[in-house]
């Protein structure tokens, strides 16, 4: 017993030498331990892997289904938000334009299109209660859209410029020649009654002339696509490429009132000079 205590005491008192002695003994022993340790570890890993891959995956199908639904829902939300962003950008652009134009306008959104046969029309979400009245002009930042034709309490029907029942006065911006702009049965826009000697050319810009009461002067309508004049015709006429894409309208501005190009309240005429 005494010798054993002395031996242990010497081990503590002489740590370096004891460590060397232990290393001599320990290295082979460690070699013996390493193999079962690695084997046990790999077995454990296999078992845990198997558990996690098979046994613990019994709820994975359900989780997968839930997550798939969640992903679909989130993708739907993302699409809805993207759509909202596009609509918001369109409306922002429209509202920015509304602030720049010298007329009173009411912004409106499109609710429906072409409810009835043969008419090219849109339904907007503003009506009598918002100050909308028949014959008011409808525009976007791109140009003229059409004219209000029917007013309900909270909705209105706009007849598009491409409908044959719409006619407004227009003017070729470069040559200053005026004519009537009307929709065609095929859905195009046509300008007629252009003066026979007009120098109008393909590509010329066409704007509103302001002669009718629903549109002020100078609003964009489109570009001349071609000019025709038969020998028997008194006037020239031409097709117009409208600036507004009627199929992609999201929001419009209804012109409720505008400043006439020529002020109505002109100053009183000067008295004639005394002779």
């Amino acid at each position, binding site marked *: 017993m005494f010798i054993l205590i002395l031996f242990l005491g010497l081990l503590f008192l002489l740590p370096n030498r004891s460590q060397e002695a232990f290393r001599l003994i320990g290295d082979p022993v460690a070699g013996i331990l390493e193999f079962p340790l690695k084997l046990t570890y790999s077995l454990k890993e296999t078992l845990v892997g198997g558990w996690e891959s098979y046994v613990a995956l019994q709820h994975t199908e359900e989780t997968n289904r839930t997550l798939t639904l969640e992903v679909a829902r989130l993708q739907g939300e993302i699409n809805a938000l993207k759509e909202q962003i596009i609509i918001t950008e369109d409306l922002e652009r429209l509202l920015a334009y509304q602030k720049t134009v010298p007329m009173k306008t009411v912004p409106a959104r499109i609710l*429906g299109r072409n*409810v009835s*046969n043969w*008419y090219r*029309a849109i339904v907007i979400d503003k009506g009598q209660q918002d100050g909308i009245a028949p014959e008011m002009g409808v525009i976007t930042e791109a140009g003229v859209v059409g004219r209000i*034709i029917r007013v*309900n309490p909270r*909705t209105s029907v706009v007849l598009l410029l491409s409908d044959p*029942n719409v006619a407004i006065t227009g003017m070729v911006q470069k040559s200053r020649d005026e004519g009537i702009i009307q929709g*065609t049965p095929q859905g195009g826009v046509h300008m007629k009654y252009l003066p026979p000697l007009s120098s109008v050319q393909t590509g010329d810009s066409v704007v509103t002339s302001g002669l009718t009461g629903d549109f002020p002067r100078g609003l964009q309508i489109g570009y001349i696509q071609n000019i025709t004049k038969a020998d028997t015709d008194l006037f020239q006429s031409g097709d117009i490429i409208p600036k507004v894409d009627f199929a992609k309208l999201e929001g419009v501005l209804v012109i409720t009132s505008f400043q006439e190009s020529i002020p109505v309240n002109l100053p009183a005429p000067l008295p004639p000079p005394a002779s």
Partner: protein
Amino acid sequence: MTIAVYFLISVGMVIIQGTLGTHLAIKGVSPDLCLILACLVGFLAGEYKGLAVGMTVGLFQDLLSPGGIGVNMVLKGLAGVLAGVITHTISTVTGTAILLGMWILSIGCGLASLVIAIPNLDMTAFLHAVTASLLPKSVYNSLLGLGGYWIIRRFYQPESMLESLYRH
């Protein structure tokens, strides 16, 4: 209850026509869902219900379109009545009968509304409208109507049709 159901279907069909009608268009030709509804109700439930639903759906259509109020109401009501009369007149209501009936009604309705909507149409434009729009639209309407008829018949056997069959 039946009146409320027909009323709701009419409202829903006008809304679908206004919002999704353009999305259903094939090469620019969109179906007249309201006419299809009026005809289907006429075929399946008789001329009186066809008249009522046709007039209701036509009135809603008129309220949301530029033409005069009453045009679609009368035309769709008439289509509903004639559809009901066709069902009572022919001995056996087959798919071909429905297809032909709806095609003829669609052409008639389309011609009448074309003349009313664009009164000053010259012959060239008229022929173009008929060949490019009216005829394809009528075919589209009749095919959709036939599809709707088959689907409804799978789940619903209206009494008026059974009576018609027994009578013959």
